[in-house]
């Protein structure tokens, strides 16, 4: 089974980086999260309820919907903030790409660690521009809002193709498919990585470091 990969590209001002990425990540996670599973006897389970919150962006003429879970929001904001800091350190001409990867765990026998098999990867490529005056910023505010509207529709189109998603697990395997650490909601297992390419073409990648780390951990 091949991992499904989608790329979304946005061109924004520096102050719009966080909100634009948050809006897209939350839109994806809204579709890739369920309520908490409550397993009962006889092999049945019930699902909790997912609430939603409208979020108005401060620097973009745009409103998006996220899951009503402060825990999840904090985790996502932290990752996006790290990406934004890395992007700003790299300089004004840098291009960054942040990826949201959904994966399943596959149990391996000792001494091998569990294998993480990605089944869907959403990459958001961010181009940061500098604008000269307030009028351009105002235009950018509206244009970026319109672009994000298009991206949301793209996300919705992909998700509603109903291509592969992991099948519903039994109670013993739920942690291999879902992130059960949150109190109120249960997203599919996911991780966020990013890659910054500065103007010199050098690439700082968190994914590479993690791969090496995982290999050395064996």
């Amino acid at each position, binding site marked *: 089974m091949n991992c499904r990969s989608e790329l979304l590209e946005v061109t924004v001002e520096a102050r719009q980086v966080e909100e634009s990425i948050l809006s897209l990540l939350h839109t994806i996670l*809204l579709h890739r999260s369920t309520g908490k599973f409550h397993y009962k006897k006889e092999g049945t389970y019930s699902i909790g*309820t*997912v*609430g939603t919150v409208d979020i108005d962006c401060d620097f973009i003429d745009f*409103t998006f919907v996220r899951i*009503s879970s402060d825990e999840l929001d904090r985790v996502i904001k932290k990752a996006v903030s790290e990406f934004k800091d890395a992007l700003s350190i790299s300089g004004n001409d840098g291009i960054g790409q942040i990826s949201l990867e959904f994966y399943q765990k596959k149990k391996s026998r000792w001494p091998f660690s569990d294998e993480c098999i990605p089944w869907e990867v959403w990459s958001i490529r961010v181009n940061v521009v500098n604008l000269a005056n307030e009028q351009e910023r105002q235009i950018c505010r509206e244009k970026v809002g319109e672009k994000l509207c298009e991206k949301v*529709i793209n996300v919705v189109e992909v*998700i509603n193709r109903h291509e592969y998603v992991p099948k*519903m697990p039994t109670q013993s395997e739920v942690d291999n498919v879902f992130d059960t650490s949150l109190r*109120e909601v249960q997203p599919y297992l996911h991780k966020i990585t990013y890659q910054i390419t500065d103007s010199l073409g050098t690439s700082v990648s968190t994914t590479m470091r993690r791969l090496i780390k995982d290999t050395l951990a064996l």
Partner: protein
Amino acid sequence: MDSDLSPQDKKDLDKFIKFFALKTVQVIVQARLGEKICTRSSSTPTGSDWFNLAIKDIPEVTHEAKKALAGQLPGVGHSMCVEISLKTSEGDSMELETWCLEMNEKCDKDIKVSYTVYDRLSVLLKSLLAVTRVTPAYKLSRKQGHDYVILYRIYFGEVQMRGLGEGFQTVRIGVVGTPVGTVTLSCAYRTNLALMSNRQFERSVPIMGIIVDHFVDPPCGSQRPANMGQPCNYRAPDDDHGEAFAGVQDSQEVCTTSFSTSPPSQLYNSRLSYQPPLLAGTTELCHTAANPNQTLHAGKEDGVMLHPAQPYHATDAHLTLEHMPNTPASCGDDDNLSHSGEGRRSASPSDPVESLNALTRKVGAFVNKPNTRLSASMDLPFAAFAPRGLDSEDNDPMVHPPDSPSCMSPLQASLHSQGSEGSGQHDDFVMVDFRPAFSKDDLMPMDLGTFYREFQNPPQLASLSLHISSQSMADDLVDSLPEKLAIYERNIDEFDAFVDMLQ
């Protein structure tokens, strides 16, 4: 075909589609209330949250939806549509978007009803939540207020998109295959809003966000003037004053909350097959289609209007719904408004514009401010905003407005600088004061707009006045120069010694 579907599955599927249709209407209408929506997640299932999503049910909306469906389900050739339109304070209306829940003949026989269809309908509802915030009508609905309001209309039958104008765009939100057909949810939205803006500028040129009841104290709990019709007010379900709305018993049906963990046969690449249109119920469907008025609000101009009671300061989830009865096709006419039961803009028999004129002529922006720095020179465009001149106040139209039957906005006053001429075309202008959001005019007599304009045109400092300063400098020179020369001549030796010291 139905024969392959167990009775329980068929029953479940019908229930899923019915409640999906009702929840779809709720999501769309709530997204056009003009307020941000916030619901809470709950880790424990309550049994009443269909599709595991916290979507509140507004009873009036459920009632309207059920009335439109009249016991039918969306089927092949019979779609459930929610039309969103905009109605201005002058009575002009325009369709903004049409959301369609349709069913086509493609069947997915192998799909599991109890989980897969349910889960995919849940995903589709989430997609609807996301997409309702990205169409152009969302921004318009967030800004609705006294200039215009957003209405919705639910109908069942053939999709009507004629009112969306040329070049409308279509977005397909998603599809869910079921054993009896494929459910499709889509939206067609207007892209050409120019018609609305042109008509607006034919009548009035609002600077921004004009609230026409600036000089009228809003009745308690509502911002609508007391002479308007009676709306059907909605109270939030947890409000002590809420009353159970008749006909909502069906929505209390417990939704499916238990699922089996035995390996479901989730075949995501299952075969699709076609089936001939259902024969059962065809007659009934035709009957419904032939008499759409039985399930619709008759006429395109009708609809149910929704407007939050407090568009700027709302903290409660109040929704003002107004039920409009049948009106003639030309309901853009103010007279029709006064006769219909339509809430917001129907008034006493007097023309609402005239009543507003009577109110606003008493006090207007820039009229009763004796210290205004706006001049009365009428020869230049935007002369009203020119620096203060020496024109007397008698000629200042800002102080003594011309005898026009209607008042003009300040921008109009400057553009039509001949004053009272062209009063015929100003009949529909209403001079109102700009009140920005969150401003409190009871504390400060001057509003932000006025302050900003005056700040932009401060009076010139007297000392920097060219003719005065130049005159005073010349006088000083003439008067003091001989004395200074005399002093310098007396002390010439000291100056020479000082210069030698420096060298």
